[in-house]
């Protein structure tokens, strides 16, 4: 069976038999004999493929070309053109082969997946990520072969430019342009880096992509290396992702063994290898210049740009750095064409985007949608809406660098510009749904606490400014806010944005500014009325037992601090000075006998 080059699958379901698939089979067999390629093709019968109205169905692999309505008279053309010359017969193809089709075919009728378009995640859940043969069976490393055999580096860069792909790490810089800049540099050594630091605390797209399909990312990196003239690739990945690291290591080893990495790849004179470097838990190391310092073995401090890494990056050499998801798009662009990718999405944002959907929403998980999908479609159609009959309040995108968008922005289309215009950012893909039980001031404080903690301390606006913002927000949620605090936050925020050294500081005030813009009344309530409408700010809240209490004792048993007193079958009492406002009594009470006031 070694020399079988094509596998044909013929549907022998009832409808297709009715449409004469039997006759078709003998026609194919005799045509194959005539062309003398009988041994290079194997014919299999498959069960019903569910496309009965288009029968008889014929599938040619590799490539998963699906022909429909094939008659015996078409057979000579298919054999000659497709099997001998390698060109599928376009007029009979009923489903074009795009890499993502396979995922759709398997899971397309599941509601959660139906509205999605899985391009970069096309193999996740479909193949065994630790088995390179599985990857090869879904046209793995075919893009690499195509690039090395049929394309010049300039053509590869041009194809990526044509796709309109923009960086998925957050900033959305046009990928083809970046590749072009790096390729244009003259240097004895260049590097390619995959940014898998994934710092947004509430996002796990890159981790899942690597865990589910590491070879796609590696194939993308090798192609990038070829396009810009690098000999070495580095994946910088968080140490907190042990499984992803293990899968990457295995994938790199297997790719080396198969000759996709190392010296003279696939018999060409292109040599390239990939190495893994671990991060060590610093958010700022996701920023490209800080990341480069970290790989060099130093503290991960950013530096001013220019020079950009494409001119002077790792060890002072021209360096191409892209995000995991950006890399995962590359094999698709090569095989399906840049033009095809650019046919998906909006005017300014092409292709798909992966989001990690979480928070107060029914279906949580990874979601890959075409650009231009609205937030509402993600939250309600894919996410299934808000659980427990609660009311939607906001959706947060972009993590600590992003913003919170309320109800009136739900019909915003996902693309870089629209989200920015609405007051948030695309970010790397975190998407947290927030319901009425979350306090927006606390949430803003949560993010500032994060960025303040992660600020590397190199520049003053970010180091000191975020600290001052945190102090003000802390006093507001503690009920000690003063008149003028909101304005102070706005002033500080806009100053930090303008004067910080790197993207961390430049975006750190965003969660605060966007919540002030969209939820100003919540800030005012905290400051003026010492009230938190979400009932989350513990200092502004006490728990009291009302007359519904039947004295069941459930609250008393669960209270971690012994703050509840009462005899059985009698109304209980919460001791305010002992109460830590953990809310467990409130949650456990079956009689709605506890009020938050």
């Amino acid at each position, binding site marked *: 069976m070694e020399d079988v080059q094509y596998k044909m699958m013929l549907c022998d379901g009832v409808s297709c038999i009715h449409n004469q698939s039997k006759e078709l089979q003998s026609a194919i067999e005799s045509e194959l004999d005539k062309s003398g390629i009988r041994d290079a093709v194997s014919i299999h019968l498959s069960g019903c493929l569910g496309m009965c109205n288009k029968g008889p169905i014929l599938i040619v692999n590799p490539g998963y070309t699906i022909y429909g309505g094939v008659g015996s008279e078409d057979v000579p053309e298919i054999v000659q053109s497709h099997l001998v010359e390698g060109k599928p017969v376009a007029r009979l193809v009923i489903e074009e082969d795009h890499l993502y089709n396979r995922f759709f075919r398997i899971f397309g009728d599941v509601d959660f997946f139906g509205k999605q378009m899985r391009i970069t995640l096309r193999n996740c859940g479909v193949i065994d990520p630790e088995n390179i043969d599985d990857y090869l069976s879904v046209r793995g490393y075919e893009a690499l072969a195509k690039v090395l055999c049929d394309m010049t580096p300039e053509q590869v860069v041009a194809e990526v430019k044509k796709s309109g792909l923009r960086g998925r790490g957050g900033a959305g810089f046009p990928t083809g342009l970046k590749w072009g800049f790096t390729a244009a540099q003259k240097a004895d050594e260049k590097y390619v880096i995959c940014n898998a630091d994934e710092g947004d605390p509430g996002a796990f797209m890159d981790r899942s992509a690597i865990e589910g399909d590491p070879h796609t990312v590696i194939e993308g990196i090798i192609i990038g290396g070829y396009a810009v003239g690098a000999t070495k690739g580095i994946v910088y990945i968080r140490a*907190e992702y042990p499984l992803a690291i293990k899968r990457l290591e295995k994938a790199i080893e297997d790719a080396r063994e198969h000759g996709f990495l190392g010296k003279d790849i696939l018999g060409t004179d292109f040599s390239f290898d990939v190495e893994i*470097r671990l991060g*060590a838990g610093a958010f700022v190391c996701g920023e490209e210049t800080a990341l480069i310092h970290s790989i060099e073995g130093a503290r991960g401090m950013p530096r001013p740009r220019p020079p950009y890494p494409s001119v002077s990056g790792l060890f002072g050499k021209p360096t191409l750095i892209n995000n995991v998801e950006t890399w995962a798009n590359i094999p698709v662009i090569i095989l399906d064409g840049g033009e095809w990718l650019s046919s998906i999405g909006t005017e300014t944002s092409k292709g798909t985007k992966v989001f990690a959907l979480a*928070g*107060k929403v029914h279906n949580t998980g990874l979601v890959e949608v075409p650009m231009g999908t609205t937030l509402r479609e993600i939250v309600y159609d894919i996410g299934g809406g808000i659980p427990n009959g609660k009311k939607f309040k906001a959706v*947060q995108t972009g993590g600590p660098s992003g913003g919170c968008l309320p109800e009136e922005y739900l019909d915003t289309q996902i693309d870089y510009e629209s989200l920015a215009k609405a007051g948030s950012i695309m970010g790397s893909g975190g998407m947290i749904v927030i319901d009425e039980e979350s306090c927006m001031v606390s949430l803003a404080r*949560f993010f500032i606490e994060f960025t303040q903690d992660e600020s590397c301390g190199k520049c003053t606006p970010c180091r000191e400014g975020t600290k001052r913002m945190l102090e003000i927000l802390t006093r507001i949620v503690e009920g000690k806010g003063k008149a003028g605090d909101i304005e102070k936050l706005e002033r500080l925020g806009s100053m930090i944005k303008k004067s910080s050294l790197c993207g961390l500081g430049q975006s750190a005030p965003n969660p605060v500014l966007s919540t002030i813009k969209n939820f100003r009344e919540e800030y005012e309530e905290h400051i003026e009325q010492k009230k938190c409408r979400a009932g989350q700010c513990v200092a502004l809240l006490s728990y009291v037992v009302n007359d519904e209490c039947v004295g069941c004792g459930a609250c008393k048993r669960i209270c971690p*601090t012994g703050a509840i007193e009462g005899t059985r079958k009698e109304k209980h009492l919460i001791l305010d000075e002992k109460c830590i406002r953990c809310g467990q009594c409130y*949650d456990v009470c079956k009689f709605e006998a506890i009020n938050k006031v």
Partner: protein
Amino acid sequence: MTQIVNEDKKNELYAFMDEVSQERRSNSYLIAVLHKVQQLYGYLPQEVMDQVAEKMEIPTSHIWGVATFYHYFNLKPIGKNIVSVCMGTACYVKGADKMLLTLKKELGIEIGETTEDKLFTLQEARCLGACGIAPVMMINGKIYGELDSKKTVDIINQYRKAAQTDIE
């Protein structure tokens, strides 16, 4: 006994540093070496750092500068069980702060500290990638999801019990 074990650890660390020294720009592997130290010792002991400094010919001050910059490295000995409470956004929105409060109370320690009996070290984590079952904590790499305070305390008690039976 511990002497021998420590000797083993030292040999493994030195073997790793030898391997790294073969690479070009070997000093850039400092962080990888620190990871190795932490993997072997659970934290970065001062005397081991001095050994690293000597072997890699990097000033100790630079090594400490790097080690203190990254949250991942423990500078103090850690307990038998590492409890990491996820304080990522999804977990936060689902009440992780309450869970943290419960744990601090239950263990009687703050973040970054270790209990007196050396059984638990409490840490804060940022998104463990299990947002779908938030709030989440991880004990020695095992994920516990959909927590409430009672569940959290129950889990801690299981580890206490396990340690008790170990001693017996």
